[in-house]
């Protein structure tokens, strides 16, 4: 279980998060939605332990992330950032093997077990055929899958794993993808959650994606939690309006709530 307790954070003098409390139970699939600049990415950074809250704390199975070493945290929690640009031309397999950093000693190199985990991860994300390709030659969707594979390799335990132990954090994974790849990422996250028992936290602007993929949604606005709970309860017309300042209808389409925006709040004409 990953928990934020009254977590507060700012960059320099600019406050971003104000006392956010949040519970992500093991095996949960949580979506984070909210306007641009609401603090979603920052919250994900706190949850991953790459930033420390100035007040409050983030707990992993009850113990603060700050009391654990970076590598110990990295063995449990992996992050897929919004976009990945490599400064040098690595092969796909090399990129995935970089995920094993936290498992290796200072001067040791990846062994057969690491290689096997990397290949399993490539297979899980459906890009095992790209192993020998240069990362820079891949399409956006393929890069995304390779980075997810690298994250999987990072939280895989060579001794096997218990469900819910591995936590995957994704920051707007569909932002730069076309429709087909968006659906691909949706079903990939679904499969990783169902088959590998991964705990997944994903931020997104795509409410259809959030409704289809996630079980639980958290609404973030102005650095605070506006609402949290099961998708059906959170994704109501009233709350979406409050979150984004837009008038919406929520209709049901194939068992999923579908948000249809029609105008910004306070204006008469359709947007």
């Amino acid at each position: 279980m990953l928990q934020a307790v009254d977590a507060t954070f700012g960059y320099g003098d600019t406050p971003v998060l104000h006392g956010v409390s949040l519970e992500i139970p093991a095996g949960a699939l949580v979506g984070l939605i909210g306007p641009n600049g609401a603090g979603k990415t920052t919250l994900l950074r706190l949850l991953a332990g790459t930033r420390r809250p100035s007040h409050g704390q983030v707990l992993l199975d009850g113990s603060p992330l700050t009391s654990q070493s970076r590598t110990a945290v990295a063995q449990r929690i992996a992050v897929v950032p919004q976009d990945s640009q490599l400064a040098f031309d690595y092969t796909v397999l090399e990129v995935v093997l970089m995920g094993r950093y936290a498992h290796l000693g200072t001067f040791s190199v990846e062994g057969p077990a690491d290689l096997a985990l990397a290949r399993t991860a490539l297979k899980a994300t459906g890009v095992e055929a790209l192993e020998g390709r240069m990362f820079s030659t891949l399409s956006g969707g393929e890069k995304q899958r390779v980075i997810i594979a690298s994250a999987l390799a990072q939280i895989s335990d060579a001794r096997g794993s218990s469900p819910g132990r591995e936590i995957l954090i994704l920051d707007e994974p569909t932002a730069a993808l076309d429709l087909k790849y968006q659906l691909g990422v949706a079903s990939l996250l679904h499969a990783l959650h169902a088959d590998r028992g991964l705990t997944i936290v994903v931020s997104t602007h795509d409410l259809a994606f959030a409704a289809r993929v996630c079980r639980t949604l958290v609404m973030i606005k102005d650095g605070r939690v506006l609402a949290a709970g099961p998708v059906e309860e959170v994704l109501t017309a009233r709350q979406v309006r409050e979150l984004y300042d837009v008038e919406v209808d929520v209709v049901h389409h194939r068992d999923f709530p579908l948000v249809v925006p029609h105008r910004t709040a306070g204006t008469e004409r359709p947007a």
Partner: protein
Amino acid sequence: MRSVRGRIVTAVLTFGGGALLTILVAPLIGSTPISVRRAWDWSVPFSDNPDAQIFFIARLPRTLAGALVGSTLASAGVVFQGLLRNPLATPFTLGVSAGAALGAMLAITFAPTLALAGIPAAPLASFAGSILAVGVVYLLASARHRGLSTNTLLLAGVTMNAFFSALILFVQYFADFTDTFRILRWLMGDLDVSSYTPLVSTLPLVAVSFAAFAWLARPLNLLSLGPDAAESRGLDVTRAQRVAFVSASLATGAAVSVGGPVGFIGIIVPHLVRLMVGADHRVVLPASALFGAAFLVACDVVSRTVLAPLELPVGIITALIGGPFFLWLLVRRR
């Protein structure tokens, strides 16, 4: 894919063999032909043995200096490129060479005969100048920022280079013709050391830096994903950046104090090596260190022989090769 360990061993054996061969052959080539057998013939007194004198006093220290400077600048180039996440960075991007040049020219102009523990003032002052320059850059980049901002590093480095160049012109105004000539020569980069003292005195610093480089190989791989991604994979990014900056700056300062600011080694060698062995820093770093040694020693042989008996400063040769190479890289990146 072959294992990383296998690739490291292959690279070290191949590039190491090449470097060794170059270093062994280089002292035998020059405007005056010498005989190895006579140079190594200890039955003749050293003072009566011109072959031995040329070999051991003129050419061997020069060759070893080339190897030391070449391998240091090449591997420091790799580290700076990894740190700045910019394949076009060089060891001199952050102001090391301009600081070193200012120090050297102050020493040449105002204290030409001073020496400390047998080391002449110019290399000492050049080292001090390089440390001053990178110290300022470091403080600028770490102020008001968690870790080191690579953008600020680059901007501060470029600014320091320009500012120190202005100071150099200012000091140069007070130098006489002889000093100006010596300063210009120093700026070209020259391996004419004619003693082992500069090598021995810089070796400890270079050795410490190389140990840091070995530790940095894997962190530099992660850094190429970006600082946030590297951090989430378990790397202490701030520490890795600090170690990279300090060790590569010290190594560059030491190399420049021996051979002057020999240009382009720090960018040509890492790129050629990456084309051959891929991007993994665990292979690129040792391969660049060894290839850099061979490359600069070979360039030095060319500079000593191409217009013999004239000996060109080696920096002219590396710049003549490096300029077009750099442009080719720029065009190729599109």
